[in-house]
């Protein structure tokens, strides 16, 4: 397999009379299959994969140790204490759920809007979503204290005749996140089936043919199957679109339904959703930029794709900035003493450093994407996406901790300080995320092969008819 040359300086030429190509360097379907499958079929992955894997597995091991330590000792190993009972675990939960939003946004909402460029990034954005939601699910799970009773979260009939409290936003969260995980997994798997069949048919060893064959369910590309498949995919997209908007809204209810100043605001659902999409796209950029370099996927994930994502980061970043401003405005405009205090305290109180990290990363950083030169510079994109990830973590920290640390009664004010266990657990969750992601890159098709073929000009069944029709 030869790598096709990348010309047309990375697919960024602007020409108003022609549509930009969605992928470059490929005329035939065969080369697309070969170039994408090469990632999985290579005898050995690049050395960077081994290095990344070693680091990720080490972090994953650390996570295991920390969770074990927590379970055997108790939640006292964390910094959570009165009045800040929600420390790192909830911050990390919201952070990871937020990251998990880009995948379904790309696969569902951009699909409904017929943004065909999504085909180059949807597969691994969806994978990223699933792994991020796994990381997110971990934190509330271990935060409940008695981990062995985690099944109390679900309405399971039991000898105590006890049921969960459905008026609590925390229970809505259980349903929202588990539904989101299930639907994202289904969406991802349905998309994978034809591509797993491709890998099955190209497999050189019995084990590969068997395992890819098992998971491709005997897909044979029948047009009668494709008909129902396409309908199912469209339905899933239509279902996932309100779902993706609802998940972070429900997460925001955890805060907004309470009475605490700084949390009890109606702007929270849209503000959280914008923030989630913002952080999700930043994470897609963080992962896509090294991945396309290492596995030579530049023909598919062109600079134009990265530029489009940068534009979405700019848009959602500005929405988040607007929400920060509006929170302050309403706090002042409402004349509410506690609400005003909460916000002044955020910006100038004991956690002001966290607040200003958040503002500079989330509001100021994305503004560089107004400039074409920044949107098209790989290094600028990569560094900015890291800043956004950091900023979005701090956003959740600021929201969670400042409101709890200093609410109504000065006598119950406090100061939250995370312990080393908090930090290592958070770091370890990146190990879990990256381990899953690296395994995915190695063993599953990283790009949606069938979908990419379907958007190529050669896929048009009437490609040669136009001239004839013109003469008729």
């Amino acid at each position, binding site marked *: 397999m030869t790598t096709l040359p990348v010309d047309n300086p990375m697919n960024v030429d602007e020409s108003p009379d022609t549509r930009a190509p969605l992928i470059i360097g490929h005329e035939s379907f065969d080369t697309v*299959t070969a170039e994408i499958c090469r990632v999985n079929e290579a005898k050995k992955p690049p050395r960077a994969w081994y290095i990344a894997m070693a680091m990720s597995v080490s972090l994953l091991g650390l996570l295991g140790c920390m969770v074990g330590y927590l379970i055997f000792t108790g939640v006292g190993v964390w910094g959570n204490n009165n009045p800040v009972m929600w420390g790192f675990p909830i911050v990390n939960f919201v952070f990871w759920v937020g990251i998990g939003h880009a995948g379904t946004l790309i696969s569902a909402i951009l699909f409904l809007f017929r943004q065909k460029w999504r085909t180059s990034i949807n597969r691994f954005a969806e994978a990223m979503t699933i792994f991020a939601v796994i990381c997110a699910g971990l934190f509330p799970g271990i935060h409940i204290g008695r981990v062995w009773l985690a099944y109390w979260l679900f309405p399971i009939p039991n000898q105590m005749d006890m*049921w969960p409290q459905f008026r609590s936003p925390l229970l*809505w969260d259980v349903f929202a996140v588990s539904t989101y995980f299930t639907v994202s997994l289904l969406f991802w798997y349905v998309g994978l089936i034809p591509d797993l069949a491709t890998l*099955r048919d190209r497999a050189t060893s019995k084990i590969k043919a068997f395992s890819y064959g098992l998971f491709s369910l005997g897909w044979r590309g029948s047009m009668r199957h*494709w*008909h129902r498949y396409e309908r199912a995919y469209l339905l899933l997209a239509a279902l996932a679109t309100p779902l993706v908007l609802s998940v972070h809204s429900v997460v925001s209810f955890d805060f907004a339904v309470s009475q605490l100043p700084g949390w009890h605001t109606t702007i929270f659902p849209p503000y959280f959703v914008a923030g989630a999409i913002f952080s999700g796209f930043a994470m897609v950029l963080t992962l896509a930029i090294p991945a396309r370099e290492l596995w030579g996927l530049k023909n598919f994930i062109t600079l134009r794709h990265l530029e489009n994502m940068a534009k979405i980061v700019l848009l959602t970043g500005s929405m988040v900035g607007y929400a920060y401003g509006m929170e302050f405005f309403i706090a002042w405009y409402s004349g509410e003493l506690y609400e005003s205090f909460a916000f002044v305290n955020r910006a100038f109180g004991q956690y002001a450093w966290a607040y200003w990290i958040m503002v500079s990363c989330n509001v100021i950083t994305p503004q560089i994407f107004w400039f074409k030169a920044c949107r098209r510079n790989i290094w600028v994109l990569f560094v900015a996406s890291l800043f956004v990830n950091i900023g979005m973590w701090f956003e959740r920290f600021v929201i969670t901790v400042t409101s709890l640390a200093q609410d109504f009664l000065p006598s119950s004010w406090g100061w939250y300080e995370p312990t080393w266990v908090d930090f290592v657990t958070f770091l370890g969750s990146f190990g879990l995320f990256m381990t899953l992601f690296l395994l995915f890159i190695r063993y599953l098709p990283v790009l949606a092969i069938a979908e990419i073929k379907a958007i190529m000009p050669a896929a048009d069944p009437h490609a040669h008819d136009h001239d004839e029709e013109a003469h008729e």
Partner: protein
Amino acid sequence: MSTAPTPNDTLWGLAAVFDTPAKIMHAAKATRERGFRWFDCHTPFPVHGLDFAMGVSYTILPILVFFGGLTGTCLAIFLQTFTNSFELDIWALVPVVGYQFEVSGKPLISTPAFVPVAFELTVLLSALTTVFGMFVLNKLPCLYHPVLKSTQLKRITDDRFVLVIEAGDPEFVMEDATDFLRSLDPESIVELEA
């Protein structure tokens, strides 16, 4: 044209291999016009409009999904009112008892509070119906199929477009079918064993 087809007992169907979407589109239309019904096209990706050119009728999947979603909504409403609003004892049916949750003077049937879970379960059951309904209608997982068995049709999932006429078609006569497929100018014709 690689093989000269000869009739045999284990013949399941005849496959004609094409290399462009336009050719399979033309072939599918011609096959349908010729009167064949037990035929299928196998393609690496959904070729736009090919399903309707083949005469595939619109799938009932959306209707199934609607009822799946409706089940989800009803289930969620039942679940929440049973577990939180009434002390219903349905021991005679299943050994569970409901619980009357009285929290901060909120109404027993707290409709707004029950909306998120109702929404989530609607979406969840709709999505499950979509995917598993699609599997059932498509008869997946399919552990064995003559098209999968053939070693010459491995490129269906890569870049080849294959039209298969089953030998079971009432119109199927070996010689005629072969001649007909030849007339479509395929890359090759493959006999499929059952």
